[in-house]
């Protein structure tokens, strides 16, 4: 956020010590010692290179490959399911095969697509760790990995969803999916009314990451 510090000064004319020209504090240098796991990561990475298992360039390329994944891939899959009945059927039967049919290489991902309808709303969690369909949606948001989300979603999902701004009618059953083993999950939201005639790219633009985790629904 742009203003995460207290200040009651004008931005012009005078400067405070330790402030940038625009009157904001400099970010502190990271002078603290490395944590145990930071040291371990460096040690393993250097050993992989030293022993010829992988070159630094290959490791960087793989990081780049993961960073290139984003919720836009999942949104494309959802948008096509909204417009192509055969694709929707494939997605619900074999989520990973549907991704590949859409041209998305999802590696070893075993995807289960769960579809929202008038009777049920689906939402995803991993109570044991942070399992997430990373090859389809990119890295999970920090809150997805928080203990609060992981413990509370299976206990009081409606209260958690309400905190995300999603209040569901009592008539709609909430189905929580706990990713405990080999499957990963994608929520297929309901296509909003008023999107008739929209093209795939425009449809995909309203399918956010949170819609595909199930803590939100698409809006136009």
């Amino acid at each position, binding site marked *: 956020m742009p203003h995460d510090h207290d200040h009651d000064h004008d931005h012009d004319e005078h400067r405070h010590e330790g402030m940038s020209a625009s009157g904001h504090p400099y970010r502190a240098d990271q002078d603290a010692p490395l944590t145990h796991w930071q040291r371990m990561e460096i040690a393993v990475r250097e050993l992989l290179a030293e022993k010829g298992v992988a070159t630094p360039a290959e490791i960087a390329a793989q990081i780049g490959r993961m960073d290139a994944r984003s919720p836009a891939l999942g949104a494309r899959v959802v948008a096509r399911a909204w417009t192509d009945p055969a694709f929707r059927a494939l997605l619900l039967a074999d989520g990973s095969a549907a991704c590949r049919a859409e041209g998305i290489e999802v590696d070893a991902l075993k995807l289960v697509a769960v579809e929202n309808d008038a009777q049920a709303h689906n939402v995803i969690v991993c109570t044991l760790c942070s399992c997430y369909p990373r090859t389809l949606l990119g890295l999970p948001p920090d809150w997805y990995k928080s203990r609060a989300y992981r413990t509370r979603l299976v206990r009081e*999902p409606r209260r958690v969803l309400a905190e995300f701004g999603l209040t569901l009618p009592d008539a709609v059953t909430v189905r929580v999916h706990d990713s405990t083993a080999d499957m990963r999950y994608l929520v297929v939201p309901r296509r909003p009314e008023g999107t008739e005639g929209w093209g795939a790219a425009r449809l995909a633009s309203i399918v956010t990451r949170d819609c595909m985790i199930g803590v939100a629904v698409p809006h136009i």
Partner: protein
Amino acid sequence: MAEAQPPAVAPPAVALPAAPPPYPDPAAPPPRFAPGAVVRVRRGAAPGHIRTPWYLRGRLGRVERVCGWFANPEELAYRRPGLPRRALYRVRFSMAELWGEGSRDTVDAEIFEHWLEAADAPRP
């Protein structure tokens, strides 16, 4: 003279792949439980890496689907091969069963076969 219609631009037709889920293992025995079967999660407390959450142990649920056969994560965690593969199920639990409240909401979780017993098995 009518103009020639441009070819319709349709995405390539999709079809189920040769081996759709449940992810098969020809060497594995058939699954012990069918979709719809009522099962209880074992109340076990084995040491080590376990993918059966504590909050589900001892709880009754219904098999939602058979996912397929997968190497046992309790062995994979210790660099063993985890073979033969074990049947993995998605089991649906009601909030009422888990937390004693009357909500119709549900939790589905993946549970390996060796963590499940028939609902009428005697409680330990």
